[in-house]
């Protein structure tokens, strides 16, 4: 008998809608990444290996493009923590992807300083050019479009981050061109951070 008369015991059991990460292919670090991991883990006290979970996940993501259940298992085993501990972290931070993403992940900053300088229109142009909405990846797997919160480049608004590199002062008029340039020249098409630009200019 159920405690609740309307809940037929055993018939309509509540099923969790929680989605686990893709199992993905078998995952182990490449020897290079394993060597990097071994250096990183030395930065923390020996009994605090868990501290290395963010750098360890970055290594996994750079190796495979996104985080899978197998990658989580590998990281958990190396750090001596549970898979749930690692999954807890993966699901919290926005920079870890649990689904495959495009070769170029275009993150458009949408927060105040960028927004009042035209970020909404930049996104609008990119949506038109790529034919996908924010959060989606195009059919060829080349581009993923995302809207993100403040990147900390408010003086060069609107700013976008493509993978780990920045592109600053992206006007709505230039947004479609950036997509073409990325296709043609890869990350070289990005302006980078203006401090780097000024540095290059100073060096001639």
């Amino acid at each position, binding site marked *: 008998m159920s405690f609740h008369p309307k809940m037929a015991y055993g018939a309509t059991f509540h099923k969790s809608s929680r989605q686990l990460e893709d199992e993905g292919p078998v995952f182990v670090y490449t020897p290079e990444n394993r060597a990097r991991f071994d250096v990183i883990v030395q*930065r923390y006290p020996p009994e605090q290996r868990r501290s290395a979970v963010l750098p360890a996940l970055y290594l996994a993501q750079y190796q495979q493009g996104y985080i899978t259940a197998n990658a989580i298992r590998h990281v958990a085993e190396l750090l001596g923590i549970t898979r749930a501990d690692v999954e807890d*972290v993966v699901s919290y931070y926005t920079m870890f992807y649990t689904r495959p993403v495009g070769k170029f992940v275009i993150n458009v900053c*949408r927060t105040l300083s960028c927004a009042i300088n035209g970020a909404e229109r930049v996104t609008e142009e990119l949506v038109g050019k790529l034919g996908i909405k924010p959060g989606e990846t195009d059919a060829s797997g080349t581009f993923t479009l995302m809207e993100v919160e403040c990147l900390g480049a408010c003086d060069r608004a609107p700013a976008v981050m493509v993978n780990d590199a920045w592109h600053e002062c992206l006007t709505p008029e230039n947004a479609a061109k950036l997509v073409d340039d990325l296709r043609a020249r890869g990350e070289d098409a990005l302006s*980078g951070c203006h401090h780097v630009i000024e540095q290059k200019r100073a060096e001639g």
Partner: protein
Amino acid sequence: MAYEPVLTKYVREPNSFTLDFYLQHGGYEALKAALGKTPDDIIALVTAAGLRGRGGAGFPTGMKWKFVDKKVEPRYIVCNADESEPGTFKDHLLMERNPHLLIEGCAIGCYAIGAKVAYIYIRGEFFHVQTVLERAIDDAYARGYLGKNIFGSGFDCDVYVHRGAGAYEAGEETALLESLEGKRAQPRNKPPFPALVGVYGKPTAVNNVETLCNVPSIVTRGAEWYAGLGPEKNGGPKLYCVSGHVKRPGVFEASMNVTLRELINDYAGGVREGRTLKAVIPGGSSVPILMPDQLDTQASFDAIQKAGSLLGSAAIVVLDDTTCMVWLAENLLHFYRHESCGKCTPCREGTDWLHKILQRIERGEGQMKDLDLLASVSGNVAGKTLCAFGDAAVTPVLTTLKHFRHEYESHIKEGRCTLPAPWRAQHPVGAH
């Protein structure tokens, strides 16, 4: 007397980030001088200088270091380089163009509180900054400015960079420590404060990048010089981030004698042609706005607080007459709703409710009773959370309601946004 920059004097020079350049301009002399004094002398010096934390709260750094429990080993310095308050981009400049200043500040901080390790927690989006910083750290190790027995004094110091992965909440000091320990960036209950129970449960001083960068000049040039740079209790150099509707946005260094009007008009070139200034956010998105008649306020911690706002991270966002204030609140609440860490119910649920109410007013579907509802929900979030996020999140709502209630009312009466700016999308992507 013209103000001579202290922190950013050389940032526009090529190679300003290299160790050789830094050494040619007096680099690591402060560390050498500091190691000749006792740790207590350094804390006394920083206290006498009146250095106040540059991350947002303006808490006296000397006092923070004094509170660190000296009976427990090991102790840690954790540098907060998460810099995620909307409108803030000053630490980015310091770390990328003057990384050795931060490293020297970390080392002196470690010496002062008796720590051997400093972690620099940098936000995930600053990958290019991490590269520069790690190279600078490697160079400092190679020449003996970090590592074992620095300057033959017997003092050991290690500095490591720890990269976050996209979480505004990691800028809150206890959430940052949780993140550094490999967990979700969610705040801890306080007290105990990090000075007693910090990272790994050990005494920890959490200091902002700009704060630590102030320390070397205090050691070399003295507390009196430092305090004399600005108004009383607001001494030293200060970095201001001016962005938004100005001609020349950027990072500007000044003493805290400077006024908001000077920063906006003289440093940042003023608002664009044909536009008038509508409002100013003086310290990042979490602080109340100031109106055009308050521009002559001195941009110091105390003067801005007296004017009804906060200096915060000195992120000055300038808004001109094209800005719809309902839209502004909606934009910022989208940010806070997204960034709420979810630990405290009032904040997690309240930011979502506020955002939904603002969205419907902005779309023209609001009712007059929604304005009371906004105030009521805000009142049930502020002060009812573990960290200051709750108070920060409701500020854009309360401050726009206070100064621009008529804009909310006209949205509701006319059933549409009454100030659709030219820089907004015709058909905003409604994916949220």
